[in-house]
């Protein structure tokens, strides 16, 4: 394992120091328990939107803290959910009588820890709700699994919900909007190489020189199947088909397309895949009205990409377009 780190145990806190130094105008970082809140928190009268999860997926979530998106992010250890006390600290720093929405990716650990934090916050008289995002079509949603995972769809979810909170929507409305977005966003990922968790020191899985893990999770969890390496055209078609067939998306739909690098895949390949996805969607009569291309939900240095489709309408489009000013997503500001 070669990484630009010191002590594997300190990697999250030391990375947060860099974030803090780089974006002191946007965020405030508190350590132990680690949480990142917008510089002007708490914003009085506003529903707080809070997310978090294991670290190693940056910019998710810490890079999305700021005006128009998250009020707080709670980064756990690498690939490990934060603990309830950290979530509670973030709630305390951002949440007033308007309440808070916790955006939780569907992993057993995240769900359990955020659930516990929400209970604790409720006990202190705060109105804190959770929405669980489970957009990964790789995992069949059945009683035989922990359910679909939360992956790339988290980015548009946080952006859109953050915009709704910013324009003054109440907690009921923000929560309902979040559930609506969760209902119409789907993703799939592939990996070409494994990530290496710093404290583990070894790649999280082995992948032959000619293999691709299709339906990878963002922690290097395996997906649907291991397939032979194939040209980008075939791979992206396989991916987009899995996503479209799931919801399903249909001819005439307007969609947001997020072509996401898993970290180790550089812009050249990410844009290349994006171009193919746009073409395939056009072929199917699905209109891409908004797009985002780049590393937004990463898995350390894992090579791979994910594709996310969110069915759009006027309200979602307006909320997506609303100003946002965070370390990693910025427009209109």
């Amino acid at each position: 394992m070669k990484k630009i780190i010191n002590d594997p145990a300190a990697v999250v806190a030391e990375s947060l120091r860099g974030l803090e130094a780089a974006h002191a105008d946007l965020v405030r970082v508190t350590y132990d328990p680690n949480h990142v809140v917008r510089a002007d928190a708490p914003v009085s009268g506003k529903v707080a939107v809070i997310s978090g999860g294991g670290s190693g997926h940056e910019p998710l979530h810490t890079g999305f803290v700021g005006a128009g998106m998250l009020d707080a992010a709670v980064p756990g250890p690498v690939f490990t959910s934060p603990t309830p006390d950290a979530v509670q600290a973030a709630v305390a720093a951002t949440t007033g009588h308007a309440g808070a929405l916790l955006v939780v990716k569907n992993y057993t650990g995240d769900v359990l820890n955020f659930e516990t934090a929400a209970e604790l916050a409720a006990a202190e008289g705060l109105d804190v709700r959770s929405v669980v995002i489970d957009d990964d079509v790789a995992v069949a949603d059945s009683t035989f699994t922990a359910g679909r995972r939360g992956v790339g769809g988290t980015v548009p979810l946080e952006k859109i919900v953050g915009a709704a909170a910013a324009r003054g929507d109440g907690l009921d409305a923000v929560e309902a909007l979040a559930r609506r977005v969760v209902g119409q966003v789907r993703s799939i990922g592939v990996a070409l190489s494994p990530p290496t968790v710093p404290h583990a020191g070894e790649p999280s899985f082995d992948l032959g020189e000619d293999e691709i893990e299709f339906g990878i999770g963002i922690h290097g969890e395996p997906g649907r199947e291991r397939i032979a390496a194939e040209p980008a055209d075939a791979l992206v078609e396989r991916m987009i088909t899995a996503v479209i067939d799931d919801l399903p998306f249909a001819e005439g739909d307007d969609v947001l397309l997020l072509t996401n690098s898993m970290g180790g895949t550089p812009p050249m390949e990410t844009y290349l895949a994006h171009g193919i996805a746009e073409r395939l969607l056009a072929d199917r009569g699905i209109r891409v009205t908004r797009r985002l291309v780049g590393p937004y939900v990463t898995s350390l240095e894992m090579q791979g990409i994910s594709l996310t489709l969110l069915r759009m309408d006027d309200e979602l489009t307006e909320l997506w377009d609303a100003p946002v000013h965070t370390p990693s997503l910025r427009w209109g500001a």
Partner: protein
Amino acid sequence: MGCNAERAAGVLRAGAATVAEHKTELTELDRAIGDADHGENLDRGFAAVLAALDAGVPETPGAVLKVAATTLISKVGGAAGPLYGTAFLRAATKLGDASELDAAAVAAGLRAALDGVVARGKAEVGDATMVDALEPAVEAAERAHADGENVAAVLTAAADAAKEGADSTVPLTARKGRASYLGERSVGHADPGATSTALLLRSFAEASR
């Protein structure tokens, strides 16, 4: 022979030592079917439990377990943190403020722990989780207690059954937690949480002799 707060703390210290010793092994198991952090997570938590106990051992076994519970909840994270935390919390509540534990209390505490894990995680035996170790352990503990065994023997029976239960996860397809994403590919691997449960119970049994 009963078990007072100091002994309870000793039992937890032994658990912490076991986790530290098997940290890499647990993480390796988790690498195979999860995200390669189970040993690391538990060790972070139990090291904090050690530190908390070093700062002062509470008055009763129940209070000792409660310290462990809150420390694990706040330090372990992942799926295992809330689950182990709940287990210790429910056991602590069950034990109340008794100053000494007997075999009956130990068996009842284990049952409460299991109920807590199931309430939170909704797993059943056969899903390839820590429940596959804990449920047979509780049953064995109850049988041993019914047979009139003492605390150490009750815990030993639990540890033996947990070990068997953990081993039984190897041929299973995981249906809860991260490993469930693997589907049939989880077959052939011991569940990390079941394994850590068995290791912890073994260390508790040995420390209680």
